[in-house]
């Protein structure tokens, strides 16, 4: 595929890796807050290709991992209702709620449908005027424009049988929360490329200066991720802290103004619970007053549903980089991909699932560069 395959070129990957190996002299910890980047790292084995003293911490960048337990429980209640067609992205289908998950609800007779786009849900609402169609609107800033436009379309079409269950989360407040944490080990960040496509890069300037950390806006193909890591490491080695854009083909400092306008019309900022982390103020979006009639939590009266996380699940500490998954007592014991306690073990790009895969074998990494031993 054009503008995709070229960014997986192994010869160029080797050049970037060699360049990194030749410059890194000290141990560094870098975090990516983006499920897509985590996926690329695991999919291509990037972390083992880096010098042993570079640690990649997989941050809370996957909506699967951070959607609060009570939102999932509310989704499950709504999805089980006979009049509802519950539409969701595939990512959320297996995330465990307090007792069950969407696919089990489907097994029990709930009309749960996987869709590619929120527009598919609107189409279903048009086709089934006798049913209530609910769309599970999770995601970071990247997905908000799609969800926002969909609600506007529903209004324009006069659909009274369509609603959104909203659980949007924002990256900059999460980064702030991580940086403010006393156990923060992160020294540099890869910023999520497509979040910045929408929001621009300006939001990260204050973070760079307040916390004196490099932040590099990074794409998703192997070369993009390697380049983001390289620039972050070079800043760290040089003692610099700057905002850099390593994904200029898709990101500008201003972002997408049209999308930002529509988002501001349809959503408003609110406090959000992040699963495993807790409440981060002003870190989410909910429907604005003008669109409150499309709010599924109101329409189905599930706001009262609260949930209790598993006491054994340390996903919050993992997501913030305070511990590695193997340091969690439940890891590989009560908590496995087979029977996950928390979201980072369910999601294939969750940090815990990623580590679980690699603990199965003890392979020396023959392609590892650099002379420093793994810490």
């Amino acid at each position, binding site marked *: *595929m*054009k*503008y*995709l395959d*070229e*960014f997986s*070129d192994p010869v*160029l990957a080797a*050049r*970037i890796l*060699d*360049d990194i190996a*030749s410059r890194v002299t000290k141990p560094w910890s870098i975090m990516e807050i*983006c*499920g*897509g*980047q985590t996926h690329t790292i695991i999919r291509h084995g990037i972390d083992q290709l880096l010098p042993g003293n570079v640690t990649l911490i997989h941050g809370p*960048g*996957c*909506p699967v991992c951070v959607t609060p337990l009570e939102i999932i429980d509310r989704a499950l209640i709504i999805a089980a209702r006979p009049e509802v067609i519950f539409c969701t*992205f595939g990512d959320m289908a297996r995330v465990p709620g307090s007792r069950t998950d969407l696919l089990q609800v489907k097994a029990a007779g709930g009309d749960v449908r996987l869709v*590619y*786009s*929120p*527009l*598919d849900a609107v189409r279903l609402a048009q086709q089934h005027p006798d049913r209530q169609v609910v769309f599970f609107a999770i*995601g*970071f800033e*990247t*997905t908000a*424009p*799609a969800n926002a*436009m969909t609600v506007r*379309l529903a209004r*324009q*079409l006069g659909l009274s049988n369509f609603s959104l269950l909203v659980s949007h989360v924002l990256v900059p407040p999460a980064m702030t929360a991580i940086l403010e944490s006393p156990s923060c080990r992160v020294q540099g960040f890869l910023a*999520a*490329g*497509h*979040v910045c*496509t*929408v929001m621009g890069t300006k939001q990260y300037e204050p973070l760079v200066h307040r916390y004196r950390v490099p932040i590099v806006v990074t794409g*998703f193909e192997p*070369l993009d991720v390697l*380049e983001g890591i390289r620039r972050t490491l070079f800043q760290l080695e040089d003692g610099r802290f700057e905002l850099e854009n390593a994904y*200029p*083909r*898709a*990101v500008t400092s201003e972002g*997408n103004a*049209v*999308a930002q306008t*529509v988002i501001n019309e349809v959503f408003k900022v609110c406090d959000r619970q992040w699963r495993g982390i807790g409440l981060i103020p002003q870190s989410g979006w909910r429907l604005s007053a003008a669109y409150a009639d499309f709010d599924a939590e109101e329409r189905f009266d599930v706001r009262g549903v609260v949930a209790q996380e598993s006491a054994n699940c340390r996903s919050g500490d993992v997501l913030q980089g305070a511990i590695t998954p193997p340091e969690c007592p439940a890891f590989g014991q009560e908590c496995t991909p087979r029977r996950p306690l928390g979201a980072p073990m369910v999601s294939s790009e969750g940090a815990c699932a990623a580590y679980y895969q690699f603990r199965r074998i003890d392979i020396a990494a023959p392609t590892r560069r650099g002379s420093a031993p793994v810490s």
Partner: protein
Amino acid sequence: MCLGIPGKVEEIWEQDGTRMATVDFGGVRKQVCLAYVPDLALGEYTIVHVGFALTKLDEASALETLELFRSTGLLEQEMGGT
């Protein structure tokens, strides 16, 4: 959050007051909403996420980035470094 891939705009039309397009992703064609990239034209590339075009892909920039990768390490090689 992030899965957005580049595709080429093949056809543009209007539906329910919104600009829509058929975008080709390496042989796979999907209907995409262009509301967020109003100046996107036929033959141009865009990054699409969950059925919405989010930006026009800057082709010149893409080539520059690749060129940057290609020249990585070469200067050092020429100067006899590792």
